[in-house]
């Protein structure tokens, strides 16, 4: 065996071939490139690490594709109307209307609101003979108003579901509101029926006013309906949304509910302008064909309109139908566990056997070593996570549709936010765990801390924690970044169970992501200081 190292065969650049000579300065970027390459080689050459990462995302994909959900939707049955802004809307209500040509106004007094809400399952036993509540059954149960039961006046561009409208209304418990085009909502006074309401049309402008006595009027709002034709349909409407009773227990949230209905009694009707029909037509607009509770009393002086449904943005979950693409990503937490373990272990493994001394002898600039490790780990988990998220959302969504589950369509922007956000959530969590590993040095401690800090809050918010506690946890812990997976906004004017399990988070997507980024940055700073200060 030869014991010499022939220099010619070494393949070295000339600068190192001469003893004792200082190599020419090389750009920091090139040095960093070498470090990243070294860290990538380290990462890919431990089979267990790659297996953990790929196993984690495989489980995430599997959970997304093997959904237990089953529905009876076909695209025709469950498609939602499209609103003027191009978004999916719910447009189901009872409308006593007649055409109005040109400018004009309608004034009415909502004399009374009566309604039915589903019986409380806790007291159901007392309602003999009523039988169990069925979500799609006819509204039955006890008298009461859903908080967002609506009765009032509406001016609408025809009777097609999804057509532009402006409306002023009294509600079950949210006072007087002026709403238009499904997503816009403005509060008036907190007054209830009896209440005077008025809508005035001038060109494309609609002004809504309210009054307690029919004499002193207060303007609630003024909205513009772009492209409103000369002739519109105007009149009295009533609708009442899916009613949910949410019980925030000590552990978890229980919800029950079903359809509700409302009847508005209107009097003191006054019309101004050109109302050529001179008679009222009662139309049930939108809503399921197989369930009709609408009713009209169209001969004055007291008019009655009964309706069920909602005029609002479409939602998934309890208040609406179907699911969002967020629900296909239920398995994200498994991949998250995998990347947190991986992130912690790639660093603690160095400390465990003193390998960190070899690493730092090869690269004495410790901050750069940490940065290179973070970039490589983050980059790899991001790319793997991105592939997984795209597969889950695209294929998982199709699987759901094929099983008759309605999946709400989302814009390309939102879809991108959800899949890229999921990848970013995994990447930053891995880097956070790596920083924890740098500070804590021991595998068990670092992995446990990472899981408790990042994964556990999310799982608790899905299961054990309720309401405020869950929101709190999803605001301050790194799990806040799950907000990136929210694909549809939560609307205050739609009562729904806005929980993490249904894909709603307390912070906006980029707000939640910022929380994770802040955690990761802080942990990296502490890790860099610790790595520099301590002897290796």
């Amino acid at each position: 065996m030869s014991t010499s190292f022939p220099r010619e065969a070494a393949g070295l650049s000339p600068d190192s071939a001469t003893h004792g000579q200082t190599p020419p300065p090389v750009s920091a970027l090139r040095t960093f490139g070498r470090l990243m390459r070294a860290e990538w080689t380290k990462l890919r050459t431990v089979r267990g690490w790659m297996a953990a990462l790929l196993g984690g995302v495989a489980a995430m994909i599997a959970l997304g594709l093997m959904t237990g959900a089953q529905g009876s939707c076909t695209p025709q049955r469950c498609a939602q109307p499209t609103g003027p802004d191009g978004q999916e809307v719910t447009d189901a209500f009872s409308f006593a209307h007649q055409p109005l040509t040109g400018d004009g106004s309608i004034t009415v007094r909502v004399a009374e609101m009566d309604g039915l809400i589903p019986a409380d399952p806790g007291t159901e036993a007392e309602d003999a003979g009523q039988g169990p509540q069925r979500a799609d059954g006819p509204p039955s149960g006890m008298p009461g108003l859903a908080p967002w039961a609506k009765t009032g006046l509406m001016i609408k561009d025809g009777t097609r579901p999804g057509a532009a409208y402006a409306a002023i209304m009294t509600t079950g418990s949210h006072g007087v509101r002026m709403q238009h085009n499904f997503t816009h909502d403005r509060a008036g006074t907190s007054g209830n029926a009896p209440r005077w309401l008025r809508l005035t049309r001038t060109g494309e402008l609609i002004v809504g006013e309210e009054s307690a006595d029919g004499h002193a009027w207060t303007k609630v709002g003024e909205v513009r309906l772009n492209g409103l034709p000369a002739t519109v349909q105007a009149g009295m409407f009533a609708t009442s949304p899916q009613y949910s009773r949410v019980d925030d227990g000590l552990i978890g949230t229980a919800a029950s509910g079903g359809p509700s209905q409302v009847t508005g009694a209107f009097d003191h009707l006054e019309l101004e302008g050109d109302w050529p029909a001179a008679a009222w037509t009662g139309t049930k607009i939108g809503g399921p064909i197989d369930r009709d509770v609408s009713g009209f009393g169209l001969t004055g002086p007291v008019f009655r309109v009964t309706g069920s449904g909602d005029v609002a943005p479409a939602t998934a979950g309890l208040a609406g139908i179907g699911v969002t693409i967020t629900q296909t990503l239920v398995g994200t937490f498994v991949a998250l566990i995998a990347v947190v373990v991986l992130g912690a272990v790639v660093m603690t493994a160095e400390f465990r056997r003193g390998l960190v001394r070899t690493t730092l002898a090869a690269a004495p600039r410790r901050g750069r070593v940490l940065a290179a490790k973070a970039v490589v780990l983050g980059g790899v988990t991001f790319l793997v996570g991105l592939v997984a998220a795209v597969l889950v959302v695209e294929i998982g969504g199709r699987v759901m549709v094929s099983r008759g589950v309605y999946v709400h369509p989302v814009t390309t922007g939102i879809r991108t936010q959800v899949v890229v956000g999921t990848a970013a959530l995994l990447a930053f969590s891995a880097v956070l765990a790596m920083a924890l590993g740098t500070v804590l040095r021991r595998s068990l401690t670092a992995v446990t801390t990472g899981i408790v800090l990042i994964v556990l809050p999310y799982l608790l918010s899905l299961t054990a924690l309720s309401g405020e506690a869950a929101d709190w946890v999803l605001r301050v812990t790194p799990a806040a970044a799950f907000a990136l997976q929210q694909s549809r906004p939560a609307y205050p004017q739609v009562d729904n169970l806005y929980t993490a399990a249904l894909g709603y988070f307390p912070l906006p997507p980029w707000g939640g992501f910022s929380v994770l980024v802040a955690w990761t940055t802080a942990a990296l700073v502490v890790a860099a200081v610790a790595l520099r200060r301590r002897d290796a």
Partner: protein
Amino acid sequence: MNITVDSLRKRFGRTVALDGMSFAVEPGQVTGFVGPNGAGKSTTMRVILGLDRADSGSALVSGRPYRSLDRPLCQVGSLLDAGALQPGRTARNHLLWLAHSQGLPGSRVDAVLEQAGLTAVARRRAGGFSLGMRQRLGIAAAMLGDPPAVMLDEPFNGMDPEGIIWMRGFLRSLAAEGRAVLLSSHLMSELEGVADHVVVAGRGRTIADASIGRLLADTTRGRVVVRTADPAAKPALTEAGATVTEDSSGTLTVTGLPAEAVVTALNRSGIAFSEVAARRTSLEEAYLELTRDAVEFRAEEAR
């Protein structure tokens, strides 16, 4: 290329690890770094590599701090702990990431694997390696950047006799190629026949820093062994100015007189003897002599 260590001081809590350690490692020779366990050898090496920070003093590689080197493995190759491996990674991949960190090609990895005699096991997981094989892998890692200076901490540990012979020859050849080699050991005997120069460390400082020849000469006090049955030998030699000790078998050990003077003194008194032999001090003895204070001090401290 040389490595210079100047007045390094470092404490770990209340324990003084380095207390003014100073020496230089010159190119073209093997410098042995020897001292009892706890003398500060490993700490000194870690400080040279920028792994530990000294409280004061300097450690420079060709006049520059290690931390400022661009591709440090191409300047100083080192083996501190052969067990510092990721067990799941193969020998080749272990060297490959190191090569990549220095911008070196994979062909360089295959070259050092060949030199260290590890080609056959290159694709085996390092976790299954014996200590001797890990030492060879560590040597391969140290040679990856073809560095002009090499620093090895206790490289003979766990090596079989064949490995030790290989290692000695290998280290000699590195010096012959003009490299500076620093080799630590707690056993002076391991350095015999390898080191040209020895730095003896004790209690965190340099006790001796000299060539092997100087070290032996300095610590050699003439020692002559005399075998005789004549009880008059001892007083006769004492009279001649020597210090004489007698062991149980009657063999006299004479110090303070060269062998010729011993023979003259015995002849003058007409004493018959069967053997007079001059004994050269071994490196091990010289080392024990030098470090006696350090070890004794430590033993007392421990009490």
